[in-house]
């Protein structure tokens, strides 16, 4: 008898649990019970808007978005080894689009061309053509959804320059002169000496783009198709020449007029220094513009100006490896005799989907990335500094109201967006490297050599030689012909 009582109790309990389970949330979402693991770097930029909007997305669709963060220096390796070994712990990734090549060729990323074309809410055509082409498309197919647009620019304290009667820097010599003038002066009124220039130079972080921004104006003058990194016929690296060495010299010189531990500063540190008023100049992506208007952290609201990357009056003659003066011939796109080469560093964080996952998860991941990129969300996020998202949609450039509502003055908005637009529309814009294993060329070889140069372990000649050796070694291992083909394809050359 006791046995039957126990059995009856068990049955009753399970029935009750089942009933409770069935009476779930009232609204049935499209992706109820689906969890999407999205991986990105530690941030707080980039991860912040994803985490902030995940609950809203869950309310709309029922899909739970789990944002996983990984330090930037490990990000590429983690992602590649996760895909290659078949572990597949990530359903989607918000990453550097230039790494796309290494993930598409082996078939790890989902082709989303059809979905993007039929997604009216995404407003695909509103995304700047450059970002659609470089950040999202490969071999004619779409693999990522852009969430961010990246250009490096120089920012300056407009109030300080005005006081000192100095114009925003047009060349790197101007930049150094301004930095020298303000180094050691008290710029934020607290009685302590401050700094002329703050550039993130930390090793194994995001600093290697800064040195490329400096090098652009010296190396590329005949338009985007000329390329910055290699000779387009021989795949020889363009680093062991007068022009790149001149850029390295500038880069080392700026360290003299900077915080004493500049070689240990990451972008988070330099942004904090600049927006708290301790630097006269900085070199960074678009984040400074929006961080400057953040009322909780910024002391320089309406005191910041942005300008296209300074250039050089002398450029590289590729045949001789020497610097030659800018003429109509050597610098067809020069402005007032100075060659500018705005650098689309990094491309702009974009989201892609793991092709090896179930269709339901892939659909949910696509919908989340699309949701993040749709103008209703994106146009707000790009005006907030801490998101790390910078303008990439035409509507974000044209619509000044967005920015004024976020707290920018009309003049500041025009100046900021103007600088980005000038960069975007420049015929001599520099494309970031998009060959297989570009991470090895940039994050490993270039970054280590430049870190050693800044530490005084190498001199400029040895640094240039080391980068050349490292890049050649990589090209040899990966196959010169294949790399050349990929390099030319990325530049739009046949």
């Amino acid at each position: 008898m006791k046995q039957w009582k126990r059995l009856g109790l068990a049955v009753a309990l399970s029935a009750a649990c089942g009933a409770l389970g069935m009476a779930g949330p009232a609204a049935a979402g499209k992706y109820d019970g689906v969890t999407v693991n999205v991986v990105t770097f530690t941030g707080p930029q980039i991860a912040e808007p994803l985490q902030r909007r995940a609950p809203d997305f869950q309310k709309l669709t029922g899909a739970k978005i789990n944002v996983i963060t990984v330090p930037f220096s490990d990000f590429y390796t983690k992602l590649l080894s996760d895909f290659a070994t078949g572990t597949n712990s990530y359903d989607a990734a918000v990453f550097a689009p230039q790494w796309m090549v290494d993930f598409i060729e082996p078939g790890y990323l989902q082709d989303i061309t059809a979905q993007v074309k039929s997604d009216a809410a995404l407003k695909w055509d509103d995304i700047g053509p450059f970002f659609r082409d470089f950040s999202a498309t490969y071999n004619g197919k779409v693999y990522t959804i852009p969430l961010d647009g990246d250009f490096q620019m120089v920012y300056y304290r407009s109030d300080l320059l005005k006081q000192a009667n100095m114009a925003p820097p047009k060349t790197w010599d101007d930049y150094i002169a301004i930095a020298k003038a303000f180094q050691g002066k008290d710029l934020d009124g607290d009685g302590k000496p401050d700094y002329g220039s703050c550039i993130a130079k930390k090793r194994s972080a995001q600093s290697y783009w800064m040195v490329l921004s400096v090098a652009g104006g010296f190396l590329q003058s005949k338009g985007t198709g000329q390329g910055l990194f290699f000779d387009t016929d021989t795949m020889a690296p363009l680093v062991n020449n007068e022009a790149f060495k001149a850029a390295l010299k500038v880069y080392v010189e700026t360290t003299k007029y900077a915080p004493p531990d500049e070689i240990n500063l990451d972008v988070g540190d330099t942004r904090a220094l600049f927006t708290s008023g301790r630097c006269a100049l900085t070199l960074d992506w678009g984040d400074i513009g929006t961080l400057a208007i953040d009322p909780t952290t910024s002391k320089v609201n309406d005191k910041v100006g942005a300008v296209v990357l300074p250039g050089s009056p002398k450029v590289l003659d590729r045949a001789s490896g020497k610097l030659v003066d800018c003429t109509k011939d050597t610098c067809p796109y020069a402005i007032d005799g100075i060659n500018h080469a705005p650098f689309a560093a990094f491309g702009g964080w974009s989201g892609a989907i793991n092709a090896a996952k179930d269709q339901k998860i892939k659909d949910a991941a696509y919908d989340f990335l699309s949701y993040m990129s749709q103008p209703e969300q994106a146009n707000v996020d790009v005006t907030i500094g801490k998101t790390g998202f910078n303008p990439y949609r035409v509507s974000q450039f044209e619509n000044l109201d967005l920015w004024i509502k976020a707290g920018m003055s009309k003049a500041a908005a025009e100046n900021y967006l103007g600088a980005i637009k000038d960069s975007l529309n420049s015929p001599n814009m520099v494309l970031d490297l998009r060959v297989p294993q570009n991470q090895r060329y940039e994050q490993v070889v270039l970054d280590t050599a430049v870190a050693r140069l800044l530490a005084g372990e190498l001199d400029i000649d040895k640094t240039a030689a080391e980068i050349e050796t490292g890049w050649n070694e990589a090209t040899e291992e990966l196959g010169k012909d294949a790399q050349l083909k990929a390099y030319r394809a990325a530049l739009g050359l046949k």
Partner: protein
Amino acid sequence: MQYDVAAAPGRLIEARRRPEFTSWADRVAPAAFIMPAVLTILALSIFPLIVSVYLSLARIKFEKGGVTVTFIGLLNYKKLLFGSQQFHLIGTLMPITPLGWVFQAIVAGLLILWLVTAVRRGAGVLGLVGRLLVAVAAIALALLFTSAGAEGGQLGTIGVTLTYVVIGVCVQYGLGLALAMLCVQNLRGRGFFRVVFFLPMMITPVGVAYTFRMLTDTTKGPFSPIWQGLGLSDFAWAATAWGARVAVMIGDAWQWTPFMFIVLLAAIEGQPREQVEAAHVDGANHWQIFRFITWPAIMPVTITLILIRVIEAFKIVDLPNVLTNGGPGIASESMTLHAYSTWRALDIGGSAAIAYMLLFIVTFFCTAFVNLVRTRPPARAAGAQR
């Protein structure tokens, strides 16, 4: 055969007929019970060890559909020791200055003296061979340091790691001993201090690294007014090679001195009380008591303690990584951090090769240490007693 002697004689017949199976099972039982644990350990540590040896002799590439492993022999090691990565592991070697040669001569002289003494003391062939190997290694190290210390030279990760280990452990031991000697005395509040001195060891190494990063930041953070008051506002610890290394060693010492402290405290408290009291009565001063009673008493513990700490110290990675990122350049990079950043660059074979080099160095160092210290002659005590 099982005999139940205490039982009644009738039972004897049953005992002899006990099945063979049981006795076999009894013999095999110990092995059978341990086997699952042994297999687990083999699978989780020995097997990966063997596989990583193979990886260090191969090149790993991520390709379509997975990973390709190509055997390349000793190429990874060649690259590290003689090739394009030599600057990273061994360092940038410059011609030795005359002063350096003088130092080399002194080191060589001392080592020869030591070898001769060993021969005189009647060391066996194996002992001599071992000592010779240690002497060769010591000369090689001296050459490395004088050559890398010359103008334009740069210490590689082997030299940096050895610096962290030798200087670090010496400082930690000295501080730990001093603190233990203090806490052994009957001072007011010593119970409180025993706990407080022990706390740093409980903190995760990354936490320690970030703490020291804040402390050594001369431009911002809670200590910057102090640095600026001292006139150091333009100085950055992490911007000079030795500054970065010292910062790492300070952080390491802060974290690991408590380990030395707590073990030495137990050892000192365990020394024979009668001898100490007798020494007091005989009028010995503190230094004499320490030298003749305390020091020999804690010697066995010291040896073990230093051995354990040295093995751990060779693996240091969190502090250089977080505090200075291995910087400036590669000046404060330890071997483990070197292996880590090589792994990150997807050169997995190279990373395994560096890890194995570290294994060889640690094994050599510890074997030499244990053997040399063990031969401290008990003969001396015997001789004194004669």
